[in-house]
């Protein structure tokens, strides 16, 4: 497929931890983002979703595997990465931390233009980016300092800073988690509108499944460094197949039947043998997976392909084989 913009191919990212242990935050992930597509990468804290996002931005170099943009492996040098980051921009959770409190809105947006030596009329480019991000009239916002803006407006400034560079991809890490409930919808609507108007693709990293329902075309569910289920968002969210995805959806308010997993997400420094989810798997615990239990405990399911609609689960795949 040639409209693939961003692709992770068997990406592993690890960190050294005290005691000579290795934290395997991302442990073999395939993922792709196509032009004009919004993909939600969902999972709990510590599942590796933010690490994966940073690897896609070239902020971490994979220990193994590769990240490519339009078919070319990411450059490693400072200059090459600078060019790449013009194409793929990052929007963080906390806009207050992302903005310099003493820089005006104008400066915040113009900074990227200067770093990347973007030709053209700077005030015009800044004004255009601000109004695209919904800060209109742009002139009124330009002289303001972040302290004079609301949380939603600050996040719009961060998004405007990214848009000024005319990127192809936004990587947004929990873009609305720190915003008020009533403002959240407006920021999500902005991401949708940017996709529709500019064809801007977004990878949205979030723990919020409602957000995925609101805006994502595809969804990838991550657990302990691996993608365990992926596919079109409506399908995965309304008919989840992996026991983990099922549990995640079941604990949302208004869900009829709750499957509350006990305990905390396990430690990425000690990934269980076999299927990484097996110690917490409700299907295994209830006996529903007895036929494949031995494999669950000993065989690591094959990682999903980048464009897959599928599930990395022995039980689901065994049932599918029998049926198919």
């Amino acid at each position, binding site marked *: 497929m040639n409209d693939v913009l961003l692709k992770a191919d068997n990406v592993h990212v690890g960190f050294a931890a005290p005691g000579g242990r290795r934290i395997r935050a991302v442990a073999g992930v395939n993922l792709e983002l196509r032009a004009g597509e919004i993909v939600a990468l969902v999972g*709990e*804290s510590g599942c590796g979703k933010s690490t994966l996002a940073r690897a896609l931005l070239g902020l971490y170099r994979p220990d193994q595997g590769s990240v490519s943009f339009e078919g070319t492996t990411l450059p490693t040098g400072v200059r090459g990465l600078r060019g790449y980051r013009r194409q793929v921009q990052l929007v963080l959770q906390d806009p207050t931390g992302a903005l310099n409190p003493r820089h005006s809105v104008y400066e915040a947006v113009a900074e990227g233009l200067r770093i990347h030596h973007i030709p053209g009329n700077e005030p015009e480019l800044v004004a255009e980016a601000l109004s695209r991000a919904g800060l209109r009239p742009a002139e009124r916002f330009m002289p303001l300092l972040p302290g004079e803006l*609301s*949380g*939603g*407006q600050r996040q719009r400034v961060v998004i405007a800073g990214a848009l000024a560079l005319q990127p192809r991809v936004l990587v947004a890490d929990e873009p609305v988690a720190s915003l*008020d*409930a*009533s*403002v*959240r*919808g*407006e*920021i*999500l*609507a902005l991401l*949708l509108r940017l996709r529709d108007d500019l064809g801007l693709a977004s990878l949205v990293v979030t*723990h919020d*499944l*409602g*957000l995925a*329902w*609101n*805006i994502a075309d595809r969804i990838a569910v991550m657990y302990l460094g691996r993608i365990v289920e992926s596919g079109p968002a*409506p399908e995965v*969210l*309304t008919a989840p197949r992996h026991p983990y995805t099922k*549990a*995640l*959806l079941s*604990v*949302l*308010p*208004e869900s009829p039947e*709750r499957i*509350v*997993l*006990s305990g*905390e*997400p396990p430690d990425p420094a000690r990934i269980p043998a076999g299927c990484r989810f097996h110690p917490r798997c409700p299907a295994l615990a209830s006996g529903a997976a007895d036929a494949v239990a031995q494999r669950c405990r000993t065989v690591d399911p094959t990682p999903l392909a980048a464009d897959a609609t599928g599930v990395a689960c022995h039980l689901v795949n065994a049932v599918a084989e029998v049926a198919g």
Partner: protein
Amino acid sequence: MTEDTVAPLLEFRDTTITYRGAHGAVPAVRGVNLSIGVGETLGLAGESGSGKSTLAMSVLRLLPSETEIGGQILLDGEDVTAMKWGRLRAVRWADAAVVFQGAMHGLNPVRRISDQIAEPIVLHGIATGTGVDKRVRELLDQVGLPTRRANAYPHELSGGQRQRVMIAMALACDPRLVIADEPTTALDVMIQAQVLDLLSALVAERGVGLLMISHDLSVLADTCERLAVMYAGRIVEHGPSAEVVRGGRHPYTRALSGAFPTIGDPASRLAPSGLPGDPPDPSRLPAGCPFHPRCADAVDECSTVDIGLRAVSPDHDAACVHVPVAEEVHS
């Protein structure tokens, strides 16, 4: 302890709370009437600046000393605002306890969690000597923390475990009222479900009253029987949870319930719903209904007349011009 069957555990009567700052007076709470009885659960929803946390903190007078409180805040029929310092200390933890938001900041980072849970037990003379240890272990057990973690420091625990410690502390002196301020905000969905289940179980088993605060209407509706929605320092809607969430009569309530979509609902698929504008600055509220600048259903009257609560049904009120005036609810 007054075992009065008439007085609710907690009652706000025309409560107003005004902060005095360098930039003048900021009215954070502008006339609230609410009550919680024994074993009742009330959810208080609203956004930053709506006054919901201010209202909650006022119950134990945890606000800056220069804050002005008007009206009454009755705890078991006794006005908190008139309590002497010593009485207030006796009431804190023992009659009413708070589970603060952001468990990392609510705990002392350099003290073991067992010592922190023990503190209110010792201060209030609930137990002495080895009895304290026993009580601490009992509490840890109740909130689902392994007792071997008793000597851990807060940083050695996960966010969900820290929140459990906060709940254990709140339960230490067997309070009859628990105030939980955004108890699950920073937590993952699975841990959130565990904490909410725990709170619900405690309410059911011990018959404590629960005032729970959140910006997430659906979380509140899952845990609480009744919901009150706050905007710009006032209650704008109040009623049974299911009715408020599914049949909200105030446009702001509807916006809040739409903000967290129901997965599977075609209306919200690829259509996030939000409100234009931002929550108002409490020191510069718009004239008329404070919500009117953001309201899609506003009519001319809304910019001049501040509508009080109107009865939707006997136990459901909303402060909106579109609710037909049967009778203005006595506020």
